[in-house]
């Protein structure tokens, strides 16, 4: 963890979690590892918050969960993107891109 890591922006976590699930069912630890790798450790999040997000998304019916057996042969809870979740992912990605672009271009002004 480095000190430059950005505070998590609101809603960012949700869209990252959705993204992590676009390749198929994953358990919570796999999602955590993917976010770590994908952001190269830029985002400093409490992993508890990540799980909270998973359950929140499940309550919204954007993801569904099921118990299965992990690669290490242990019982693990696997999350899958639902059809509604996939739509959300597309919509939120677009929003995020517009937002990021706007902020970047504003900061790029001389």
């Amino acid at each position, binding site marked *: 963890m480095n000190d430059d890591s950005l505070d998590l922006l609101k809603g960012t976590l949700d869209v990252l979690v959705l993204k992590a699930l676009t390749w198929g069912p994953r*358990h*919570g*630890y796999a999602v*955590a590892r993917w976010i770590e790798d994908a952001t190269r450790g830029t985002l400093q999040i*409490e*992993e*508890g*918050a990540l*799980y*909270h997000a998973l*359950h*929140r998304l*499940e*309550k919204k019916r954007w993801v569904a969960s099921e118990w299965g057996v*992990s690669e*290490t042969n*242990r*019982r*693990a*809870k696997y999350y899958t993107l639902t059809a509604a979740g996939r739509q959300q992912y597309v919509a939120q990605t677009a929003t995020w891109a517009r937002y990021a672009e706007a902020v970047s271009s504003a900061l790029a002004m001389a």
Partner: protein
Amino acid sequence: MTLPTGIRRAFRLALRRPRIDEEVDNEVEFHLAMRTADLVERGYTPEAARAEAQRRFGDTKQWSMAMSELDRERAAYDRRTEWLGDLRQDLRYGVRSAIRAPLFSLLAVSTLALGIGANAAMFGVVKSVLLDALPYRDPDRLVRMYGHFAAGSDNRGPLSAGTVNDIAQRQKSFTGVASFSGLPQDAIYIDEGGPRVVKAAWVEPALFTTLGVPAALGRLLRDDDAASDTVYSIVLPHTTWHRMFSGDTAVVGRRVHLNGLPRTIVGVLPKGFVGPVAGADVYFPLSLRPALRDPIRARRSHWLSLVGRLKPGVTVDAARGEMVAIAADLAREHPRDNGGITIATVAVRDAMVGDTRRPLVVLMASAGLVLLITCANLAGALLSRTVSRRKEFAVRVALGAGRGRLVRQLLAESTVLALVGGVAGVLLAALGLRALRGLALPSLPEYAQLSLDGAALLVTAATAVATGLAFGLAPALSASRSNVQGTLRDETRGASESLGSRRVRGFLVAGQIALCVSLLAGAGLLARSLWAMTTAPLGFNAESALTFAIQLGPSYGTADSRLRFQEQFLERARALPGVSAVATTSELPTQVMNRNGFTVEGAPLPADDAQPFALYVAVSDDYFRTLGIQLEDGRTFNASDAGGPPVLVIGEAMAKRYWPKGNAVGSRLRVGPNPNAPLITVVGVVADVRNDPARMDPEPILYASIRQNPWNSPVVVVRTLGDPLAMVKPLQRELAAIDPTLPLYRPATLRDVVGNGLAGRRLPVVLMTAFGALALLLASVGVYAMFASMAAAREREFGVRVALGAGRGNIAGLVLRQGGMWLGLGLAGGALGVVAVTRLIGDLLFGVGPFDPMTLGITVSTLVACAALALVVPIRRATRADPITTLR
């Protein structure tokens, strides 16, 4: 063979969802373990790795709680949607299964429609009579007060002006009291259309404020309206205003002629107002002052009704106590006049509902019994349907349906049937009420509107749902208890009904029979009573006789002129072809309201110092001959009584009671409250006439001659040779020939007049008989259904028995024994029901004992006959059991 319970239990446990907290803990633990393993791989010691994993996760406890909370909310939401989804599915399935068995559904729905419809209609009546608000402000605070003569039968008698005045001055229970003349008086109203008779009610002006009724138009009566005889103000009820003045708003201030005197209409009462005086067309202001000034009339003439509004916090009981105390004081102060009179205090609703409460309660209870029979019947039918559908249920349970779910689904099916039945029932009830309106309205209080309003519909809907649950419960529970494994495996051998279910059905049938017997016995007793009332001799000949009334106007002010008119009219009428006899009377038999106190000369005063009362009518010479009333002793009236010493003819019952030695003729008595009234000689004794057809024993009656007591509103009785009503026109011509200003009104045959008096008695009989017939039909179907399915269920067994050599008779005996037991149980239960029913309707019986052997015999034999009829088909089927087909 079934699975050991332990294994089943183990399965259920596995299917059960783990608890939410456990799941969350497992998930978090998995994460921590994975992270620790990763870190160890990267060179951490296991302890350091675990600590680092923990640090990265954050507060485990807090996050776990937050996750559990989210999961719980989700689960609750899921349960709700699942429940609703299941319900929708159940209902859809219910409709589908109803459509799949159209005959059964049709039968169930029509049975339910009859049961629910009967209840909805009865509730419509009960609600409008007993529950709906009376058309007054705070009607629960209003009470009526009556004079109760200790010696007489009349416990709702009128009060004297003196008593009313004393009550008004002494009472502390009421914010106000107001009196009115209990009976409306006929008055002649003359307009362009000619003379007409209207009913005038004399009321103290305070009556309207006491009742809390505002004027719809103009103003209501004020005290100064009654203060002087020179001011003639009147108030119209809404109906009169519409009927006679076509709702003209300019009617206030108009002068009209009533009894030849000009009167001014000062106001109109609101729509829906129902006065305490039945059938009043117009209200006159009443002042007690003239009556109070007259020493005899003040205390000895009882003609007033009294209504009061309770002060806040005062109960009817408290007011009753105060009135009894005042009556006791008055009896001490005026022993001769108020002795033996107490005051009965009754809530206004009770006063208005009067005698209709008991029949209505009986009928509502009967309708309830019919619904119970309906439930029992359908429960039985559904039970046998459940038996044949056992396979279907077993499959569903095997596929994972919970037992609760199965019960729910069957209840949904029965509720669907009940709701459809309820809708059809409401339609039936609406039709029924329309039919009832003609039959019932004359015998119901005037304010009752027979209609199904929102509240009645709501109650009906609730009844329908409750009915569906009630008759669906037993079959549903029995279906859920069935043995899945056995049913699925053993296709044919398990086809006979379980003992428990058969017993339930037996009890249902026995219950139906018991209820049916009770209802039929009640209906039979009431029908016998009505029969006894209509056929028991009334004491006069009501056939081929015409009656009508004539109102003599103010120009007939003297007794002489009234007598002259009557003699003149009688003579002309007698001369008409088609008339065999004609007479006048003050009131028709069975309709006499006028009662007078009397004192027999030389007889000791009764212990409580109160006068006995007798019916009092004034009749013409030919009255007894015209009505066919036998002369028993002495003579009837004749021309010699004109101007002669005062004479009376009395009824036989009275003669026997007061002159047991048979010396009535020639003895003398005083009539009326005045102790110095002239002594009147009894010149004749005639056969009794029952004035109240609903009472067996005739009341004492006094007949005076019109020659000595000419009434100003004579009622004419004409005995005709042909159709009585055909004589109205010629008689009207004769009347007009004497005086064209006199109206001939209320023409009717004497038979109809007497019959209308029994209208109120006819209603419960007709309805209860209808309910009884319905119950009989339902119970017969129930008996049939039980025996049919019982025989069908044991068909294989019978086949075996026949194969082993049993005869047809043995088989029939088997079926009969099994069914006969339930029949016997039903009849025994019915005996209890009959006791309850007779207790309830005891007061309504007439000329028949509560345990009338004939009624009970007919009831039981009708029922047994119907049951036997219902048995024929199943028994024939059972005895035809073919060993070859059933055993193959």
